[in-house]
């Protein structure tokens, strides 16, 4: 056998020394790291402090309109569907893909449910077909983006437009309203003061948090988003995980559409545009907090409520409905700018 120029004994010694050294250092840092962890938590939750400050500000300013149970409930409940969409958006975002089709999948799903129910079909069938629609869109997105390698932004933008057309087609461009009893219970049954829709969204946040932070899948997603090539070389099923993320976002969007059908009991085919930007504003702004630089569940929740507090406060102060668009649009730009600056400062 060949012989190798190994400096064995000295090499072993350094190894042991380093291990003992490291253990000692680790032991002494135990207490310090606890305090450091608390401090880093403070900075990581920057967005939460902004949210609280904004809430307190508007509460003092508008004690009779803003700081009322009714207003708080309205703010939270009005965001249920958007929160579901925002969580849907985070999954492909984590893996580095944009899914802009979510708002249109939602509209198409709502339209499917309402149109079928208005034609006397059972709610179960309608829900089943709406989810089926989401599945099909997810599969098509995944095939185009992952298998063929088309740019995700362009693919899903095209999908967004096409599905918007589908919603107009099956509704004949009309607003369709169904009788209250047909679909309403599904999203409006309330529990502990909040309607079911809000609970769905919150449960989804917890599930997404669990998947992102506590499972290997969550780690694979963020690693793929960080360095796809390195993940592939490390044996991660990159295509499978990206495809799964796109499939999940489409399915969750279809689910959001079903919830919206339940909330409204009606479909206005032009509704999609109102849901287009806000989920991304929340998901991207959310990526600047909790786990900085990474789209995440809790950050998305905080960001979304921050946005709704800002918009509601402005509206109660007399700004008209354009405040919504301006605030959300600016928040999106601010979010990506902050993320870019944070990434830049970390690089140096």
């Amino acid at each position, binding site marked *: *056998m*060949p012989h*190798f*120029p*190994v*400096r*064995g004994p000295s*090499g072993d010694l*350094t*190894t042991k020394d*380093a*291990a003992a*050294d*490291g*253990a000692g*250092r*680790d032991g002494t840092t135990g207490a310090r790291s606890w305090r450091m962890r608390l401090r880093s938590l403070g900075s990581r939750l920057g967005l939460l402090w902004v949210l609280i400050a904004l809430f307190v500000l508007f509460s003092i300013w508008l004690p009779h309109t803003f700081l009322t149970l009714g207003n708080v409930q309205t703010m939270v409940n009005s965001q249920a569907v958007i929160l579901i969409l925002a969580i849907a958006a985070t999954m492909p975002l984590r893996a580095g893909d944009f899914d802009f089709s979510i708002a249109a999948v939602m509209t198409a799903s709502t339209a499917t449910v309402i149109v079928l129910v208005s034609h006397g079909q059972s709610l179960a069938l309608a829900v089943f077909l709406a989810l089926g629609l989401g599945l099909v869109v997810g599969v098509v997105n995944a095939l185009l983006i992952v298998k063929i390698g088309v740019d995700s932004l362009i693919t899903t933008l095209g999908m967004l437009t096409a599905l918007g057309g589908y919603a107009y087609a099956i509704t004949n461009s009309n607003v369709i309203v169904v009788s209250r009893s047909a679909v309403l219970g599904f999203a409006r049954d309330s529990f502990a003061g909040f309607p079911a829709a809000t609970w769905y969204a919150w449960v989804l946040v917890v599930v997404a948090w669990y998947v992102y*932070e*506590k*499972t*290997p899948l*969550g*780690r*694979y997603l*963020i*690693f793929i988003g*960080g*360095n796809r*090539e*390195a*993940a*592939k*070389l*490390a*044996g*991660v*099923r990159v295509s499978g995980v990206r495809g799964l993320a796109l499939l999940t976002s489409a399915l969750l969007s279809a689910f959001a559409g079903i919830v919206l059908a339940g909330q409204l009991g009606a479909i206005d085919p032009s509704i999609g545009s109102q849901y287009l930007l806000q989920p991304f504003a929340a998901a991207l702004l959310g990526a600047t907090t909790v786990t900085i*630089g990474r789209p995440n569940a809790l950050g998305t929740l905080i960001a979304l409520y921050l946005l709704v507090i800002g918009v509601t406060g402005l509206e109660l102060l007399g700004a008209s409905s354009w405040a919504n668009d301006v605030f959300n649009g600016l928040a999106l730009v601010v979010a990506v700018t902050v993320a870019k600056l944070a*990434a830049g400062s*970390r*690089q140096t």
Partner: protein
Amino acid sequence: MTGSQPALQVRGLAKRFGAIEALRGVDLDVAAGEVHGLLGANGSGKSTLIKILAGYHAPDAGSISVGGSPVSLPVTTTHGLAIIHQELGLVEGMTVLENLGVNVGYGTRSLLPVRGRAERRVYREIFDSLGVELDLDQKVGSLTPAERALLAVARAMRVISGGQARQLFVLDEPTTYLPRPEANRVTALMRSVAKLGIGVLFVSHRLKEVLATTDTFTVLRDGQVVADGVTARTSEREIIRAILGRDLAGSYPDKIERPGQQDPVLEVQDLSGPRVQQVTFSGYAGEVLGVTGLSGMGQDELSYIIAGALPRSGGRVILNGTDITGRGPRDIIGRGAVLIPSDRQRHGGWLAGTAQENISLPVIGDFFRRGLLRSRRERDHSLELMNRFDVRPPVPENMMRSFSGGNQQKIVLSKWLQLQPKVVLLDEPTQGVDAGARTQILQTVTELARQGSCVIVFSGDHEQLAAICHRVLVMSQGSISAELTDDQVTEDWLLSASQLGTSARTSSPDP
């Protein structure tokens, strides 16, 4: 038609990078109408010289004149010389004609119409003068590499016929990626260019090509001119001696049989890819096998093809008796072979992730117990590995980016070696790594082989290969041109085998 007027005259050119003197007083003359070869090993100063000519670096001292008129330094674009780099700067999706016109504004002003017919006539003339036949409407993407090189030369010629007098062509390794007959078309073109009275400076690692093409030559070593003269009056041996700085003793000794019969862990049979052609070799347990060659000879691609990370066009890979041909990285890793890439930023790791996240990626499933990622255990595991590989500082939460190059590489190594692979493919394991970390990494590598792994190091660092390998395969133009074993594995042999490339093979009795 060797003109007396110099196309290029370089005097006393010097350039220092920190402690390294890349060029120390280099003189170089290229006469109009001749092809001049510039030779030298990696690090001899060749590329620094070219970069100064291209205006990329400013020299510390010295002068350059082109066509008899001095050039103010640093060199800027239009001094009468055209440089054609290895990367030719062509757009694949555009046609030959569209690519040709881009550096002369398509012969018109920005917002005026392009006169297609006039343009075509200009290039037909250039093609005729050079003896080039290319379809002007063909997409560049469908051209062979050699045709692309011809196109790049023809494009530079337009500037001459356009009246801006160009005196000198510099071709920087234009033939590196080309198989021999293709390369011959490019060297023939150089002769045609010289016939038009233009000086040509030909930079190449391929000694045979330089000998066959050039009129005169210059050899650089350690930033100095160590030989120059008329090519026809100089022997190949003299030039090799100048390049290496030592004599080459005799021919290759007989191959030594490997001690001890054992079954190979890795068998590569006729493996081919975009740049790799029918490579066959075996790797054995407990050996450190080197694979080397000049840049672009396919050795870097070979490791990725074996690891399933790049597509192959033919051949088989057998790992531990199992055919793993066509399988992806995930499967191949599962069967005990890992690729440790050299490019930490692009392939090795995720710089915005933490050390812990990078280390635990391949084994993250092990920390998923009863529905939760056990982050404490994951951290302990990462910390233990960081200590074992002497990563400093040993803090798993630190971002990958915050570590030095050497420590990043140790993190990448620990990520892979925790899998206790039977076959380790190491791509330039010490690239961009400081001296201290380099020693540690090489110790780890040899220790790995001692423990029974088959370690294959893909590297252009001959000194390093000579120190740790006991068998080295030398690649040239995508295939293995030489195999050096045991006492043949020296820096000198590796250097000359890489430099000679094909000539090592042709010097053996071959019809």
